[in-house]
C-alpha cells in the first residue's frame, strides 16, 4: 500500500479507499434495489449474465455458468467492507506523519464517515443506514470498555476513587439537572418556538447529553499524554458516570410516559441508582472471579485461554444489560478483577494474545463508531432550530465548567493532593461527548418525543463541537498551560523499591498514629487477597513481590533488546551491516568472510525473532523463554569470539586504550573449568545452553578481524559493562584465595537472564576499588590473566547475577 520506506504517497491508499467506497455505495444501492424490486441488480456490478433464478420462476432456465448472488452474502459482505474501510482509513491517516498529532483520529474518522454518508445519500436520496443503537450498545461499545478496564492502572484508580466517584455521580447530576432546567427556561421563551417541549423532556435531554463519553475521552487523551493522575480522573469519571446516566435516562423516560409522578417514584429512582451501580459492579466482580477460577484449570488447553477472558467479560456486560444495570461498570469491574489473577494463570503466549486481541477489537470498534457517527449525521433526521442548538451547546460548556469548579472546591478539602486550577481546567475541557449520547438520543421513542429530530440535531452539534474543536485544541492548550505530562520513562527497579519502601513507611506511620488511612485499607485488602483469594484463584500460588516480578520482567526485556540490537552493542552490527549492504563487489577477503558469517548468524536470529514478536505501538514486546535462552547463547557466543579476537589483537598492540587491559584472553583451558563449576550450580536454563555453547565454541574458530575488534573496543569503552570486572573480581579472589570470601555460586531465580546493557556503567562499590586498583597496577603491562578471565567469564556470567562483590 505504498507505505514503505519512501516518502509517503497519499494517493496510493486513497485509491483502494475510494474503490471500497464505491463498492459500498453501489452495494448498498444495489442491495436495496434487489430487495425492493426483486430484480437482478446486475447493472451496477456489470456482470451481464443472467441472475440467479428467482423463487417465482416457473419457466425453465438453462444452467448458469456464472451467477451473482449478492443478497446471500449481503450482511457479512457489508460488515467486512465497513471494517475494511475503517482500517484503510486509519492507515491513510498515519501516512501523514504530522496529522495524527494535530488532529485526533476521531475527527478524521468522523470526516470519512461524513463523506461516505454523503455518497450514500447522494446515490439514493435516502438516509443511509443509521447506526443501530443495539449494534452500538451490544457490539461496538463493550470491546472498548473492556480494553480500557483491563489496562486501567488500578492503584491510581483506587487512590483517586473518591474524587472520581464524586465527579461522576454528583457532577453528572449537576450537569443533567442544570442543563435540563436552563433549557426549559429557554424553551419557555415563545420567540423560539419551543414551548411544546416539557420540563421532563428537557431533563431527559439534559441527562443524556451530560454524559462524558469514554470513547471520545480515550481517543483524544491518548495522544496528549497528560499526567496519569489527570487522565485517570477524566477517564474514570467517564466510566463511572454510566451508572448515573443509565438511571437518569430510564427514570426520565418513564416519567415522561407516566401520567402522574408521585414522590415514591423519586425514591424509587434513587434506589434504582444504587442498584444499578452496585449491581453492575457485583456482577462484574463475580464473573471476574469465575473467570479467574476457570483459568486455573486451563493449563492443558492453552489455546482457548484467551477465549475465556473475552467470553466472561462480555457475559458480564450483557448480563448487566439484561437487568438494566450498568453494563459498563460491570465489564470494567470484571476486567479489573480478572486482570490480577488471570495474568498469572495463563501462559505467556495467551497473555500476549489477550492483550493484542483486545487492543485490536477496541481499535476496530472505536473506528467503526466514529465512522458510523459520521454516516448517520447525513440524512433527513434533522430539524434545525438556532436557539435550541446554540443554547444547548452553551449550557453544556457553562454547566460543565461550573460543575467542575464547584465540585473541586468541595473535594479538595478531602483530597490529599489538591487539584490546581490547571487540573480543573483540563478536567472541564476534557468532558467530551461522544457516541453514547448519540445512541441514546436515537433510542428516544418518537411517540413520546415529537421533537426528536431537534434533539438529534442538537446532540450532533454538541458532539461535533466537543470532538472537533475541543479535541483539536486540547493539545496546544495542554502545552500552553504547561500541564504536567506523563513521564514515560522505563520502569526501574530502584523506583519500584522506593515506592514499596515508601508505602511501608507510610503505613507504619499511620499505624503509629492509629490512623486508618488509604494505606491501611490497601494493606488489609492485600492480606485478605493473599490469604484467600490468591489461593483459590491462582494455580501455583507463590507469594509475589512486585519488586521481584518487575525485576524479572526487566531482565527479560533487556535480554530481548540485546538480541535485537545485535549482541554486544548496537553500533557494531549496524556498521557491519551497512558495510555489507553497501557491498561493492570485490573479492572476499577472509576478513569479510568473517564479517558475513557474523552478520548471518546475527540476522538469522533476528529473522526468527521477528516472526515471533509483535510490534504494535502500544504493546511492549513480550519475551519467550526460549527466545531469551537463545539470546544468551548467542551473546555468550559472540562474546567468546570477540574475546578471542581481542586477545590476539591486544597481544600485538599493547596500546593506550584503557579498556584494553580488560580485553585479554585467559588461557582457554580455564574457561571451561569455570563454566563447569558454574554449571553445577546454575539454573536449568544455564545447563542446556552451556553445553550447547561449549560445543559451539569449538566449532567456531574465527580469526581476529582488526576492524571489528577495534570498533568493539571503542564501543566497549563507551559503555563498558562493569559487571564484568566487578563480578570477576570475586572469582579471581576466590581462585587465588586472596580474600577467600563469597565463593558462593550465584544461582538465579529462574527466569532472570541476561543483564541490562544500558545500565552497565562502571560503578565499583566501596572497598572494591582499592583492591582492584592494586590488582590493576600489579598486572598492568603484560596482559593480566585474571583480568582476562574476568572478561570472558562475564560472558558466561550473563546469566548469573552480578553479585558476590567482596565487601
Amino acid at each position: 500500500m505504498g507505505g514503505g520506506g519512501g516518502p509517503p504517497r497519499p494517493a496510493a491508499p486513497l485509491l483502494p479507499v475510494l474503490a471500497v467506497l464505491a463498492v459500498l455505495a453501489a452495494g448498498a444501492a444495489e442491495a436495496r434495489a434487489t430487495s425492493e424490486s426483486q430484480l437482478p441488480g446486475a447493472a451496477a456490478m456489470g456482470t451481464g449474465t443472467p441472475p440467479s433464478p428467482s423463487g417465482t420462476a416457473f419457466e425453465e432456465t438453462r444452467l448458469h455458468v456464472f451467477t451473482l448472488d449478492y443478497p446471500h452474502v449481503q450482511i457479512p459482505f457489508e460488515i467486512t467492507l465497513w471494517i475494511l474501510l475503517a482500517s484503510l482509513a486509519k492507515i491513510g491517516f498515519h501516512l501523514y506523519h504530522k496529522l495524527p498529532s494535530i488532529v485526533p483520529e476521531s475527527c478524521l474518522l468522523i470526516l470519512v464517515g461524513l463523506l461516505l454518508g454523503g455518497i450514500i445519500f447522494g446515490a439514493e436520496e435516502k438516509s443511509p443506514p443509521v447506526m443501530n443503537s443495539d449494534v452500538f450498545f451490544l457490539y461496538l461499545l463493550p470491546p472498548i470498555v473492556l480494553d480500557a478496564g483491563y489496562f486501567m492502572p488500578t492503584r491510581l484508580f483506587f487512590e483517586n476513587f473518591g474524587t472520581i466517584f464524586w465527579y461522576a455521580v454528583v457532577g453528572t447530576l449537576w450537569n443533567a439537572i442544570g442543563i435540563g432546567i436552563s433549557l426549559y427556561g429557554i424553551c419557555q421563551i415563545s420567540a423560539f418556538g419551543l414551548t411544546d417541549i416539557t420540563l421532563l423532556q428537557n431533563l431527559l435531554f439534559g441527562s443524556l447529553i451530560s454524559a462524558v463519553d469514554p470513547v471520545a475521552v480515550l481517543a483524544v487523551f491518548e495522544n496528549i499524554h497528560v499526567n496519569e493522575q489527570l487522565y485517570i480522573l477524566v477517564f474514570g469519571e467517564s466510566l463511572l458516570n454510566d451508572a448515573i446516566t443509565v438511571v437518569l435516562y430510564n427514570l426520565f423516560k418513564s416519567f415522561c410516559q407516566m401520567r402522574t409522578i408521585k414522590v415514591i417514584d423519586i425514591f424509587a429512582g434513587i434506589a434504582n441508582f444504587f442498584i444499578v451501580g452496585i449491581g453492575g459492579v457485583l456482577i462484574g466482580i463475580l464473573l471476574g472471579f469465575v473467570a479467574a477460577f476457570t483459568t486455573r484449570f486451563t493449563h492443558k488447553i492453552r489455546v482457548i485461554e484467551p477465549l475465556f477472558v473475552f467470553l466472561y467479560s462480555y457475559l458480564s456486560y450483557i448480563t448487566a444489560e439484561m437487568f438494566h444495570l450498568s453494563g459498563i461498570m460491570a465489564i470494567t469491574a470484571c476486567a479489573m478483577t480478572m486482570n490480577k489473577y488471570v495474568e498469572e494463570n495463563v501462559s505467556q503466549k495467551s497473555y500476549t494474545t489477550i492483550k493484542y486481541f483486545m487492543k485490536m477489537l477496541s481499535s476496530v470498534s472505536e473506528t467503526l463508531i466514529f465512522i458510523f457517527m459520521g454516516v448517520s449525521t447525513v440524512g433527513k433526521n434533522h430539524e434545525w432550530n438556532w436557539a435550541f442548538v446554540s443554547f444547548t451547546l452553551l449550557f453544556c460548556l457553562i454547566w460543565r465548567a461550573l460543575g467542575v469548579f464547584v465540585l473541586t472546591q468541595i473535594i479538595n478539602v478531602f483530597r490529599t493532593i489538591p487539584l490546581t486550577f490547571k487540573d480543573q481546567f483540563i478536567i472541564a475541557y476534557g468532558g467530551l461527548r461522544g457516541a453514547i449520547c448519540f445512541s441514546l438520543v436515537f433510542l428516544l421513542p418518537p411517540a413520546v418525543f415529537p421533537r426528536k429530530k431537534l434533539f438529534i440535531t442538537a446532540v450532533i452539534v454538541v458532539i461535533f463541537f466537543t470532538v472537533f474543536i475541543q479535541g483539536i485544541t486540547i493539545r496546544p492548550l495542554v502545552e500552553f498551560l504547561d500541564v504536567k505530562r506523563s513521564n514515560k520513562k522505563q520502569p526501574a527497579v530502584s523506583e519500584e523499591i522506593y515506592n514499596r519502601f515508601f508505602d511501608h513507611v507510610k503505613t507504619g506511620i499511620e499505624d503509629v498514629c492509629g490512623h486508618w488511612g488509604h494505606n491501611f485499607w490497601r494493606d488489609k485488602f492485600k492480606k485478605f487477597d493473599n490469604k484467600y483469594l490468591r489461593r483459590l484463584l491462582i494455580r501455583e500460588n507463590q507469594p509475589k513481590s512486585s519488586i521481584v516480578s518487575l525485576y524479572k520482567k526487566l531482565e527479560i526485556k533487556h535480554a530481548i533488546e540485546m538480541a535485537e540490537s545485535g549482541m554486544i552493542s548496537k553500533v557494531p552490527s549496524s556498521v557491519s551491516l551497512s558495510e555489507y549492504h553497501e557491498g561493492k563487489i570485490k573479492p572476499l577477503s577472509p576478513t569479510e568472510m568473517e564479517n558475513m558469517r557474523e552478520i548471518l548468524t546475527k540476522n538469522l536470529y533476528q529473522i526468527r525473532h521477528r516472526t515471533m514478536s509483535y510490534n504494535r505501538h502500544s504493546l511492549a514486546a513480550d519475551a519467550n523463554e526460549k527466545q531469551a535462552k537463545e539470546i544468551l547463547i548467542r551473546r555468550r557466543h559472540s562474546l567468546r569470539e570477540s574475546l578471542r579476537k581481542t586477545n590476539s589483537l591486544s597481544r600485538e598492540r599493547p596500546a593506550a586504550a584503557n579498556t584494553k587491559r580488560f580485553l585479554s584472553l585467559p588461557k582457554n583451558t580455564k574457561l571451561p573449568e569455570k563454566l563447569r563449576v558454574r554449571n553445577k550450580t546454575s539454573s536449568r536454563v544455564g545447563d542446556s545452553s552451556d553445553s550447547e555453547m561449549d560445543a559451539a565454541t569449538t566449532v567456531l574458530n574465527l580469526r581476529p578481524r582488526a576492524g571489528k575488534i577495534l570498533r568493539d573496543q571503542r564501543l566497549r569503552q563507551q559503555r563498558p559493562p562493569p559487571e564484568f570486572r566487578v563480578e570477576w573480581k570475586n572469582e579471581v579472589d576466590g581462585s587465588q584465595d586472596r580474600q577467600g570470601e563469597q565463593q558462593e555460586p550465584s544461582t538465579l531465580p529462574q527466569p532472570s537472564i541476561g543483564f541490562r546493557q544500558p545500565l552497565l556503567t562502571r560503578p565499583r562499590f566501596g572497598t572494591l576499588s582499592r583492591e582492584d586498583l592494586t590488582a590493576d597496577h600489579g598486572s598492568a603491562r603484560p596482559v593480566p590473566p585474571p583480568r582476562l578471565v574476568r572478561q570472558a567469564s562475564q560472558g558466561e556470567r550473563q546469566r548469573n547475577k552480578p553479585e558476590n562483590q567482596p565487601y
Partner: protein
Amino acid sequence: MGSAHSVPAEMRELADRTGFTSEQIEHLHRRFKQLSQDQLTIRKENFDSIPDLEFNPIRGKIVHAFFDKRNLRQESDGLADEINFEDFLTIMSYFRPIEMNMDEEQLDRFRKEKLKFLFHMYDSDHDGKITLQEYRNVVEELLSGNPHLEKESARSIADGAMMEAASICVGQMGPDQVYEGITFEDFLKMWQGIDIETKMHVRFLNMETIAHCY
C-alpha cells in the same frame, strides 16, 4: 490531659515550631499518651504495643527513625533512648501535608526535609551515603515478608537497583571511577520526578478513628 504539655502557651509554641494546628497536637498528644502508657517519654519497647506494626516488613527501620537523632534535629548523631512528646511531634511533622499557601522556597525546603527523613532510613550507619550493603539490607527487609524468595535474588535486585542509581546519578563513569554510594544529592535526583511532598503525608484529620481499645 494532666501533663504540662497541655498548657496553651507551650502548645502554641509547639504549633509554631512543628506547623501543626492545636487540634492536631491535641490528637497526637492523646496518641502519645496511649503509646507511652501515660509516661512522659516513649521507648522502643512501647512501639511493640501497636499490633499492626508487627506485619510491616520495615518495622525496625520505622521505629529506628523515631529515635534517630538526625531526625530529631539535634546536632548530634546516633540514637536516642527515649523521646518525649516534642520529639514525637517533630517526627510526625515530616508527614504533614502541604498547605496551599506555601511558596516555592518553602515547598522546596519541605520536600528536602521529607526526603532527608527517608534518606536517613536508608542510611543506617549514619555516614551520609547509602552504600551497596545498606541498600541490600533495605531490599532484604522489604522482601522479608516473602518466604519463597532466596537471599540471592534480593541481593541481585539490590545490585541492579544500585547500578541504575549509579547510572542516573553519575552517568557514564570512567573505568577507574568508584561509586561510593548514594549521597543525599543523588538521592534527591532520583526522586526528582516524584511528588514526594504531596505523597508523603498522613492525614491527621480523622483521629477520632483511633481505636482506643488498643
